[in-house]
């Protein structure tokens, strides 16, 4: 078959699928609930992205040189995650329909990779568009179309790199030593980048240690990354990142050529690293199908969790409240599908930020800061990473609806399934921070206040996690046709923009629900001007109770919605 006609058929498949999907989503807006959500979403997008805004210090920093180096570093760290921990097999996954129609078709395996690259462009383009609006607030002289081109090149390159890493890993796994030898150039190049970064950090560790505050630390980090050997390791990635941070059209014109060259080099690399692709893709697709046969896979690049063969189980008593069985089931789900690699990024970020906040202070203070930062990051991102709740179980709606349990109890058990493990991890982190602060310097509060926060943190964290998870479950129950259901956690950089929007909306809902609890807590603190520590404990716990009550009311509403939900809507 001619290459042109194959590419045309791929384009036809992608464009018609996209158009039909969009029309299906929009048709949903005819129902009042979806229509209202569309209006709210449009207002949110307008307020978050489109609304005119003035240049601020924060956005100027966003496009500064230090940010440029740090973004480059974060991009490389993200890609290293693909190499080391592997988003590998699922980056190659095709849907069952694609396997059925494309694999037996008279097309080359290389053209199938071209199809993967073309299909990923939909997510890349949407993400680039979101970031154009976000960075537009930086108020630089660079016109939006040029920034859009820069972002498209950046995200496309990262996408190519991720797919290339997946293909190398697949080749090594499938062919062992032969596969490693075949892809040795890629492996050596990756190893050199890693060595350059580690070498840079070691060579300039004194400069990093000398930083006395977060701002100085970030500046030092930017400076270290701009020096050899780290600079050499980051260089090719920096070439791709640089046009996005260009300050003028002339500078952009100078930078865009090398960026395009790096992107094309990545495309060439991917297209010539196709060994073992077909087997790996089939394996990936089969595992995806096995994992969630009811899941309508709409995304090409996603991190998914394949249930691990069980080596142990948890006991379940034959008697007791039935909703505890849902909690038991979802805990097993978490144990067997948890993707530890998705936590690598937050842990590295927390360590970096903890070091920045603890600059110039003892190591134990840095540990405490890192633990607190990680606990905070889990509040913000934990709900995205742990999905053993209705975001998975809405795929089993017909089964859920035949169970002899009140729908509101199902919602409560599902929310608890995700909120409780997050809370346990956060409590451990808070306890680590408390212990690490003892006898150290630089603690943000006095011992009494820290003890009060330690005592009240379980209630507060559980209430906050419950509220956030409830809001995420609400989207699954109320708008199942508009959101992605299933265990998969999207981790690709090319979906970063969408994830930022979703996370911001989630936090906005938390802020709204915190108004009443915060007012009550503030009132208690104002009334009890003496004995501040005990008042703080009471204030936090009362606030947590109010937030929990609000969340419970939301869960009851969701229970009604779940009772009315029909499989045809998912």
């Amino acid at each position, binding site marked *: 078959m001619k290459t042109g006609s194959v590419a045309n058929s791929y384009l036809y498949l992608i464009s018609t699928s996209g158009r039909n999907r969009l029309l299906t989503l929009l048709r949903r807006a005819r129902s009042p609930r979806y229509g209202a959500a569309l209006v709210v979403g449009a207002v949110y997008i307008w307020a978050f992205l489109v609304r005119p805004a003035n240049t601020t210090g924060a956005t100027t920093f966003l496009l500064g040189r230090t940010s440029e180096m740090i973004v480059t570093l974060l991009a490389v760290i993200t890609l290293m995650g693909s190499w080391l921990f592997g988003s590998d097999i699922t980056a190659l996954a095709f849907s069952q329909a694609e396997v059925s129609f494309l694999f037996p078709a008279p097309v080359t395996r290389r053209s199938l990779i071209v199809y993967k690259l073309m299909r990923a462009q939909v997510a890349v383009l949407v993400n680039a568009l979101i970031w154009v609006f976000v960075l537009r607030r930086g108020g630089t002289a660079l016109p939006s179309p040029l920034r859009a081109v820069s972002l498209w090149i950046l995200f496309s390159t990262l996408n190519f790199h991720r797919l290339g890493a997946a293909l190398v890993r697949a080749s090594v796994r499938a062919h062992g030593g032969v596969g490693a030898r075949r892809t040795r150039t890629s492996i050596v190049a990756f190893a050199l980048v890693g060595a350059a970064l580690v070498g840079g950090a070691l060579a300039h560790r004194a400069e990093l240690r000398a930083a006395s505050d977060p701002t100085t630390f970030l500046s030092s980090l930017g400076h270290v990354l701009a020096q050899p050997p780290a600079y050499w390791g980051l260089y090719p990635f920096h070439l791709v990142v640089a046009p996005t941070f260009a300050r003028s059209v002339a500078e952009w014109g100078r930078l865009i050529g090398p960026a395009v060259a790096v992107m094309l080099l990545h495309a060439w690399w991917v297209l010539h690293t196709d060994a073992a692709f077909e087997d790996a893709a089939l394996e990936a697709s089969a*595992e995806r199908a*096995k*994992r*969630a046969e*009811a899941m309508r896979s709409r995304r090409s690049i996603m991190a998914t969790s394949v*249930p691990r*063969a*069980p080596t142990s*189980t948890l006991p*379940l*008593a*034959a*008697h*007791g409240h*039935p909703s*505890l*069985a849902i909690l*038991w*089931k979802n805990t*097993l*789900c978490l144990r*067997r*599908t948890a993707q530890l690699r998705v936590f690598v990024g937050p842990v590295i970020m927390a360590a970096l930020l903890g070091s920045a906040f603890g600059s110039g202070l003892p190591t134990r203070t840095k540990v405490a800061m890192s633990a607190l930062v990680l606990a905070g990051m889990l509040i913000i991102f934990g709900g995205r990473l742990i999905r053993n709740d209705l975001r998975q179980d809405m795929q*089993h*709606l*017909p*089964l859920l*609806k*035949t*169970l*002899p*349990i*009140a729908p509101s109890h199902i919602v409560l058990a599902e929310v608890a399934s995700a909120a409780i493990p997050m809370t346990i991890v956060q409590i451990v982190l808070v306890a680590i921070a408390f212990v690490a602060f003892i006898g150290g310097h630089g603690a943000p509060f006095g011992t009494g206040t820290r003890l009060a926060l330690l005592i009240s943190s379980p209630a507060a964290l559980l209430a906050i996690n419950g509220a956030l998870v409830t809001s995420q479950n609400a989207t699954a129950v109320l708008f199942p046709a508009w959101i992605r259901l299933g265990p998969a956690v999207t981790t690709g950089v090319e979906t970063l923009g969408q994830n930022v929007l979703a996370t911001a909306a989630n936090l906005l809902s938390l802020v709204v629900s915190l108004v009443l609890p915060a007012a009550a807590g503030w009132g208690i603190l104002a009334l009890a001007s003496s004995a501040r520590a005990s008042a703080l404990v009471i204030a936090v716990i009362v606030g947590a109770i109010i937030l929990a009550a609000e969340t419970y009311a939301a869960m009851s509403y969701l229970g009604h919605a779940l*009772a*009315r939900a*029909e*499989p*045809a809507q998912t």
Partner: protein
Amino acid sequence: MIGVRALTKLYGSFTAVRSISFDVGPGEILGLVGPNGAGKTTTLRCVAGIISPSRGEVTIAGHDTRKDPVSAKRALAFIPDEPHLFEYLTVDEHLRFIARLYGVLDIDARLPPLLAELELSEKRRALPGELSRGMRQKLAIACGLLHDPTALILDEPLTGLDPGGIRRMRETIAARASSGAAVILSSHLLNLVEEMCTKLLVLRRGECVAYGTLSEIISTRPELVNRSLEDVFLELTRDDTVAR
């Protein structure tokens, strides 16, 4: 045991099921037949409480599915044509999960014979992804039968089963009916329906075109006397057939 009155299901302006009424008493097996798109699965899902009827009333073991859904569901088992299983629970864990939900206290005693009967003993620690299509269907059936339901709804229950499994499933359905369960069986296998069902409900385009025992149905259509069930079915579901 299962009572359905004037059941109607609308999707926007489209009527999927229009004013259907029927009863299935203890020991009876109702065969639900009709061409593709006739409304069989919609009817079964309304009765099982998976979707809400737009109009009408469904009772299971005396419990209105709208007013007292939990009690109604406790008496019911719905076995769909496509097994819905949790990918991260083993065979054994699925059954323990269902046992807890339905209050089956003697699960430890019940499990071994049930697994042996369904030839799943060696797979009790396997995840659904490690099971064949037929074994997954057997597991779904086991989950449905575990709590001894008094109302049993089966949508194409033999899909994916091997000949031995099909025979055992037929025996199981008959045994459940004999022990007093009300059974609704939807299937395109007309010989199965003819052999097992005590009465028939024939649907076409969401409407009931025939209801009763086979002899009752034929008695209203003299031209169908001495014809096979397949001929009766095709005649009743022809597009120009007028409901009687």
